[in-house]
């Protein structure tokens, strides 16, 4: 699903530097902003707009990550929440009041001072106007200033993942007070981040360094995000020095580029996960044995290979291996015999026909669905692949007109985001219709438990039941794949796919 942020077809490239050196060979012309020392990054799509509180597009957040700040930010290494515009925070005994101390000496790009009024304005804008991220404030009673450098958030129930809710991405950006009245935020920006918006058109978005950035001016003079949709073209642009960075490389090239030292190719497991989900309103998919049979019939390794040419980690739960909340649990090894037995036990007569809805928005799922179909064919399930455009796909999902679908959730950090909405009885994203009182209770406990270890214990229990019941049939976590010019330094690839050029230095 186009979860918190839609997926960029991450793939990565290499640099082959044919003929020429670093960036001079071909006249790169184009956007031209910044200065001599401008990093050109090839991204796969144009931002749909630049209002951080309104957009949900990954292409927009690639740019906005570098323009705006949030109170707290994920650590690039382990994604735990670290200070940013807030330097410290404390929670009241009952967990219902959070006091954030704000950083001193922060200015917006127009030179105005940052203070608590800006935070109150930004959060209340999201809440009052019911903007896309207002659900992140669902437990928030009020956001108030206590002097110029303190903000108090009052909650209706303890919310251990509040920091993740307000800091996981730039959709929760802090705008200057009255920004929506003073600016056209869809095309203009005034943030506190390391770069300021210079221009944005149908070819590229250009940022220039903000010299007064609170964490020190960026190393480069600017960044130009150039939109190159076709991965082969992006890779070529990187190889001939037109761009110095890209996240858009043909997946089938990942392996061969790995050993190519004229290109810096890096991968890291992402926090995204892809899964299959079956519709409980359409028998026999309401039958646990049938779902378990399907789970036993699949070889996740092969599916991941088909989708991402090996740049994905098979996983039978949602949370990837590198996360603190990862649960090492894989009860389903491919076993067609057992699958057939379970189907028989469920009284299903084979061949059983199952529609599998995929969308060309994520072309790799279309390829992988064919592998799923051939694996299920062996146990007597006839899979009818239905390839739809995303708008139609969402319509049918919403109306419950499907047997099964195959999609992903992107950009999750907290276990509540991984499990709650999808598996709680009548949860907002529980399209399949799963209901298990035991899971409901665990998810409720997890949402308010403030001790990390106790929380992990709770979510481990919930995940085990969810996996056993096959509420979702988890498949894999894809890798983040990015490539840049050899010698480019100060850039760090991140599991949450945030792209931050604050410290980048050109070769």
């Amino acid at each position: 699903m186009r979860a918190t942020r839609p997926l960029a077809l991450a793939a990565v490239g290499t640099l082959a530097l044919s003929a020429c050196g670093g960036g001079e060979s071909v006249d790169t012309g184009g956007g031209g902003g910044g200065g001599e020392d401008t990093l050109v990054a090839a991204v796969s799509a144009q931002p749909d707009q630049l209002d951080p509180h309104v957009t949900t597009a990954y292409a927009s957040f690639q740019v906005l990550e570098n323009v705006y700040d949030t109170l707290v930010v994920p650590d690039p290494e382990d994604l735990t929440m670290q200070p940013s515009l807030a330097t410290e925070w404390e929670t009241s005994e009952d967990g219902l009041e959070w006091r954030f101390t704000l950083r001193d000496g922060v200015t917006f790009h127009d030179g105005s001072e940052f203070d608590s009024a800006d935070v109150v304005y930004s959060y209340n804008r999201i809440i009052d106007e019911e903007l896309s991220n207002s659900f992140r404030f669902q437990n928030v009673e009020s956001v108030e200033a206590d002097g110029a450098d303190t903000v108090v958030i009052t909650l209706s129930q303890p919310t251990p993942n509040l920091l993740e809710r307000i800091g996981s991405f730039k959709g929760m950006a802090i705008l200057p007070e009255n920004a929506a009245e003073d600016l056209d935020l869809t095309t203009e920006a005034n943030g506190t981040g390391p770069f300021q918006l210079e221009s944005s058109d149908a070819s590229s978005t250009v940022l220039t360094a903000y010299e007064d950035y609170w964490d020190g001016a960026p190393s480069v003079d600017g960044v130009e995000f150039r939109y190159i949709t076709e991965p082969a073209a992006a890779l070529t642009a990187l190889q001939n020095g037109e761009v110095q960075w890209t996240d858009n490389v043909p997946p089938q090239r990942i392996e061969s580029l790995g050993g190519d030292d004229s290109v810096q190719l890096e991968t890291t497991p992402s926090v995204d996960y892809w899964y299959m989900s079956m519709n409980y309103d359409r028998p026999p998919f309401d039958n646990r044995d049938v779902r378990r049979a399907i789970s036993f019939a699949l070889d996740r390794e092969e599916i991941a290979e088909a989708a991402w040419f090996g740049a994905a980690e098979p996983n039978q739960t949602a949370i990837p291996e590198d996360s603190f909340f990862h649960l090492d649990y894989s009860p389903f090894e491919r076993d067609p015999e057992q699958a057939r037995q379970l189907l028989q036990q469920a009284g299903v007569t084979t061949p059983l026909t199952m529609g599998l809805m995929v969308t060309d928005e994520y072309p790799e799922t279309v390829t992988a669905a064919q592998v799923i179909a051939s694996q299920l064919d062996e146990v007597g399930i006839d899979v009818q692949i239905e390839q739809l455009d995303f708008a139609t796909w969402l319509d049918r999902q919403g109306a419950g007109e499907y047997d099964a679908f195959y999609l992903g959730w992107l950009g999750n950090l907290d276990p509540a985001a991984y499990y709650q909405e999808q598996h709680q009885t009548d949860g907002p994203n529980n399209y399949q219709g799963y209901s298990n009182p035991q899971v409901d209770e665990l998810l409720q406990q997890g949402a308010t438990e403030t001790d990390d270890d106790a929380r992990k214990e709770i979510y481990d229990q919930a995940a085990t039941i969810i996996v056993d019941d096959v509420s979702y049939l988890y498949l894999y976590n894809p890798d983040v794949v990015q490539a840049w010019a050899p010698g480019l330094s100060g850039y760090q690839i991140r599991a949450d796919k945030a792209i931050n050029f604050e410290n980048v230095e050109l070769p």
Partner: protein
Amino acid sequence: MVVLAGVSVIVFALVHLVPGDPVRLALGTRFSQETYDTLRERSGLDLPLVQQFFTWLGGAVTGDLGVSFRSGDTVTALIAERLPATLTLAFASILVALLIAIPLGTISALRPRSIIDRFATVVSQFGISVPDFWMAIVLILVFAGTLGWLPSGGYVPLGEDPLGWLQRLVMPAVVTGTVSGAVITRFVRSSVLEAIGADHVRTAQAKGLPARQVFTWHVLRNALLPLVTVTGVQLAYLLSGVVVVEIVFSWPGLGQLALQSVQARDYPVLQGAILLFAVVFLIINLVVDLLYTAIDPRIRR
């Protein structure tokens, strides 16, 4: 005008008939019901369809095509931003197409079943049947990759950087021009062949006119009529955006905009773009008709 009014009704109906919910697409998957309702109301999508139509039509008459759901920009601004790139590519492609089609078509008509004719047939078959996607990728890999002569894609306005403009235009224009040229070549060949066989040409030859004069005045001029028609059709097609080529070469034209709006079910942009294509088609038809009368005196009567 009557045509345009009809087109606008059909456009509006078609766009709204397509399944898909722009609000859900704009919000992604995590949102509250309140957020959904608010955005739907803000976009005017909660109003009855007939009312939405007349609001849109009222604006369209005065040149206000509404605001994009997706970007928050006005539709006219979005289209205006992309129009120069589309016009550039369309006219450059037609130029390439005619440069291929006229010589190739004429020569193969003058020497039917010769080696050149066979060659022309092969070339035009190639142009029609080879996917433009494939041709575009091959050009990029060879000229931007291996040889490093040209940038891999993008667009710069002519006024900003003439050399960069030309460098970036060459490959997309060659790809679309080859496809159009292949189509036009066949028309040129058949219409020249037809003209050569006409009675008045034989008369002219019988009178002993020099071959060159016969060809220029009696053959070519008559063969021009179908050429103008097919060129007009090709131009209209190119002006409505060549999606695949635009995407592969990162060319910021109307085709990309139309595709993005279809995917996002961005009704205002989609309606604006289709309306524009209809207008373009009407204008080209008009120009073709005017050219007819200029070329063929019989039509004037």
